[in-house]
């Protein structure tokens, strides 16, 4: 595992998709949209349930989207691995995207804040590296 990992993406696709391995009762490889505009990662109910993570309806957070303000449950993913980098205890809100979207959810700042990122649309390359202040391979 190097200090820096990169992902090739199609700059004309309109979104950057990243595979994230979510470790719970099972490991689910989810396809998330790279979203620096999202405070939290976001995952759908069915996926979270399959991970064996209990959704506490009393533990919620108010979320603002482009069109509405809504309340969503918030959970903790024990381990999330993206491009070979693992982060422990990642906060995620639970909310379904329209099924037509074909993606599971969002990779937001609750994961991304642990890294330095470089997005090169000319090359179609996203580079992720550990923040200098964080040295362990697994970030607590």
């Amino acid at each position: 595992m190097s200090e820096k990992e990169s992902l090739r993406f199609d700059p004309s696709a309109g979104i950057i998709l990243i595979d994230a391995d979510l470790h719970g009762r099972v490991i689910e490889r989810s396809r998330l949209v790279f979203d620096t505009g999202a405070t939290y990662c976001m995952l759908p109910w069915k996926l979270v349930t399959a991970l064996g993570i209990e959704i506490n309806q009393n533990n919620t957070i108010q979320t603002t989207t482009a069109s509405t303000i809504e309340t969503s449950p918030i959970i903790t993913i024990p381990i999330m691995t993206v491009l070979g980098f693992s982060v422990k205890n990642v906060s995620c809100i639970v909310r379904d995207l329209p099924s037509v979207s074909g993606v599971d959810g969002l990779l937001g700042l609750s994961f991304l804040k642990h890294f330095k990122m470089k997005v090169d649309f000319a090359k179609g390359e996203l580079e992720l590296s550990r923040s200098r202040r964080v040295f362990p391979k697994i970030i607590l």
Partner: protein
Amino acid sequence: MTVNDVYEKYPDNKWVLLRVIKENQETHEIEEVEPLFVSDSRDEMYEKINNLPEGDHVMTLFTGPILKEGEAFAFSFV
């Protein structure tokens, strides 16, 4: 096989349930897997998981493409 091998073997919008043979205990990367079940339906795959013996170390993934031509994505949470 590796996870990348799975994408090559099942390239057409499949939900795949895999037994994890080898996981790097330091980085948690999945290094070796064995396919257990392949389906067009995510729900079918989840049913299969529920019927697995307790403690089976498994992984799921979807092999298909996402957005179709002419579609866009606009969604952000604060």
